[in-house]
């Protein structure tokens, strides 16, 4: 968060309160305050797609507020009429009439002169796993099978630690180059990919998924993504060609252990 920007926005809104502006000015001030907050108050900046959605919601909310009471509605109408007709507002009116077309022109200019860039990724979604996968001739049931070494966490902590260590070895031999030292999706090769590799430190990635899902993604990689919802974009290799089943389950244990997260438990039908 950019604390200075946030403080500046708050200061302007507090200062405005002393000026006792009309309802229209208040509504416009709130609109710009939220816009400035979304664009400059949050670091890293909020993507344009989200800012646009936020501003649409804020616009509707402000319109609802102004029109929800007859008094406010009347005040808004009168102040708008006064702005366009009263001599008192001649200079601000001229400034607005000049500024709006200039703003539009600037927007057109800036959009026409930007450097070519790949289009925004319009669909970043979890691929749905199949019910079962075949791993070197054995069928793994992704809905019902569990990590065969997970139970060791409670039953035999020493054996569990050995599996985690094995997972650590597998990770640093194979995965670190893309997913990074800290599993934040920022390995040496990460800059070459679009989309960039998954950030396992994010509590909304592997913590949302069952271990079977991770097994499927690691074993089958990008080539094994489902036929539905194509096209997919993933440079992940099919690790079943290089790793054993035990190594894959072990690296899954390590991912959760290192990031201090828990895999999603299976839902129980009630």
């Amino acid at each position: 968060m950019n604390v200075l920007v946030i403080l500046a926005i708050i200061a302007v809104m507090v200062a405005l309160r002393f000026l006792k502006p009309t309802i229209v000015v208040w509504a416009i001030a709130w609109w710009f305050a939220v816009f400035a907050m979304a664009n400059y108050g949050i670091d890293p900046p909020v993507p344009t797609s989200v800012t646009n959605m936020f501003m649409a919601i804020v616009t509707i909310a402000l319109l609802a507020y102004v029109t929800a009471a007859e008094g406010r509605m009347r005040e808004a109408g009168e102040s708008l009429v006064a702005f366009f007709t009263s001599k008192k507002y001649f200079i601000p009116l001229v400034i607005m009439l000049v500024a709006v077309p200039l703003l539009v022109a600037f927007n057109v200019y800036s959009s026409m002169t930007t450097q070519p860039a790949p289009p925004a990724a319009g669909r970043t979604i979890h691929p749905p796993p199949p019910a079962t996968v075949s791993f070197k001739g054995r069928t793994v049931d992704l809905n019902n099978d569990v990590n065969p070494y997970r139970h060791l966490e409670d039953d035999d902590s020493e054996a569990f630690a050995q599996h985690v260590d094995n997972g650590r070895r597998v990770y640093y031999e194979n995965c670190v180059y893309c997913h990074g030292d800290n599993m934040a999706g920022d390995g040496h090769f990460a800059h070459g990919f679009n989309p960039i590799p998954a950030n396992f430190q994010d509590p909304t990635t592997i913590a949302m998924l069952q271990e079977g899902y991770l097994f499927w993604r690691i074993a089958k990689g990008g080539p094994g993504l489902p036929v539905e919802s194509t096209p997919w974009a993933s440079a992940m290799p099919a690790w079943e060609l290089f790793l054993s089943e035990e190594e894959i389950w072990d690296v899954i244990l390590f991912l959760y252990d290192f990031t201090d997260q828990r895999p999603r438990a299976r839902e129980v039908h009630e």
Partner: protein
Amino acid sequence: MRDPLPQRLGESRYFWGLSRERLAVAGGLLAAAAAVLLLAPIEAFASAPQDAANPAYREFPVVGSRVIMWVTAELHLMFAAFVLAVPMFAVIIEIIGYVSGDKRYDALAYEFTKLLSVSFSFTASLGAMLTFLLVVLYPALTDYLMSIFSWTFFPYVALFFLEAIFLYSYYYGWGKFNPKTHIFLGIMLNLVGTGIMFIADAWLTFMNTPAGISETGELVSLSAAFMNPMWMPINIHRIIANIAFGGSVAAAYAAFQFLGAKTDEERAHYDWMGYIGNFIAIAALLPLPFAGYWLGKEIYAFSQSLGITLMGGTFSWLFIIQAILIGNLFLAANYYLWVSMERIEGAERFRPYIKYLLIVIAGCFLVWATPHSLVASVEEARKMGGAHHPVLGVLGVMSAKNTAVNILILTTFLSFLLYRRGNKAPTVSWAKAGNIAQIAIFVSVVVFVTFLGVYGYFVEASVRIGLSVPQVLSVIFCMIAVTTIDVFMYRNARVTGKIKWGQMSARSQYALFFIALTFAWTMGLMGYVRAGMRQHWHVYGVLEDTSVDAFTPTLGYASNVVSITVLIFFVFIAIVFWLAGLSGKKAWEPAVKAGGEPGEEGAE
């Protein structure tokens, strides 16, 4: 002063702001489109090439088989929802009228019921069309579903007959039976209607979460197939959603009549009717998200793959659209209450609080609509370190969204409390203590719900989802406890001003239209999600879709089909409104010529 548009609506030249000439053109185009579809040569229903004698699919001309099935099924569902919902609240309003002796409630219940007769015929016609289309266009799927459910068709038909008997005896028997007998007919109508829905729900939920069949798809247990994992969650979700939808359409009918009303009495009546319809819709909307959680949980429990497709995969973006629609619904519902307070003398003292309510509502709306994975350019994604924003990303998961929805519900409830208190002042000695208790309950529940929301980030995902239960229970406790205190506190309250029914701005009525339209749109969208999440399966994991349509359409295409379906529904519902309004019109009389002789043209 009223807005000019309703005055224009009252003029014969205009109908919904369109001149007769434009209406004629639009009607002509619609009729031409219908004619192209209906009069297309039978050869146009081309068979799929795989087996000329027993094709698995036939192609519907122009729009294709999938779209015609999709639109017809959705229209049938919308009318069915309306026909099932209206008797539920009509009979409750009738009972209130009978118990209180207030004839206004009886008249209101009858006014709601007037909408049913034509709607029932529309529902049946669309149901027949849906069946024919299924048999003609998807014969292999129809055969398979018949092999599973054929024995359920007979009770369905029997219940349909009973539905017709109870519905028409309830409608035509108004005022002609003993009130208790009439209420009994209404209750039976509801029971039979619910039974019909439960049977039809078994067919459609089986397609998503099949059960009671062997590995090769043969029926093993009809009861297991019938009561498949998704069946009861859909039943409950639909009952609640139907009431919300039915209430909103009835409120839109009242708004329609309000805007065209000629007298103050009419305006007062339809203002009140709109208020009651909207109250029913919003009261049913409040528990709807909770029924939705259960439904989603059962889908995830049945298949991780279906669950991810639904909420995290292909269809996850439709839930962002849903969040925006439902956020707008809550905003519009609150807006209607705030505008309604303008007609209550004394309610102006609550006006300063509205901005705080709005800030909370807008804040919750923003949280609810924030996606988990953001649409971003490569540059934006690199700055964020992935598709998830380090700050906003935490708002994209269930913990934040559940918290936002629960607070949204509580805020809407608070708006209603303020509305209810508008022209009243409590006379009980403990009023101050009562207010403090209510505030304490509100604050503690908001703190508790927020705490659980934050706590959810530190526990395993399935535990996090389980936290929605205490969140929901605490919100329900808050609403019941605060309402109970309020009822006793405002018993024998001093009335400080009048409610000036009928003195409402036109924009409040447009808010009612907006609410009905948004309900219909949400229903169409979520209906698509429910069916679409099977992707290339007719019956998930059992019967694969091998037709030319075995692909998931883009979100934009799906949204367009849903929008067109909603438009068609509202054209049909406008016909229902018009027909329902005919009963109140004067009888036709021949025009009188200047000389006193009847003319050939009927008087308008």
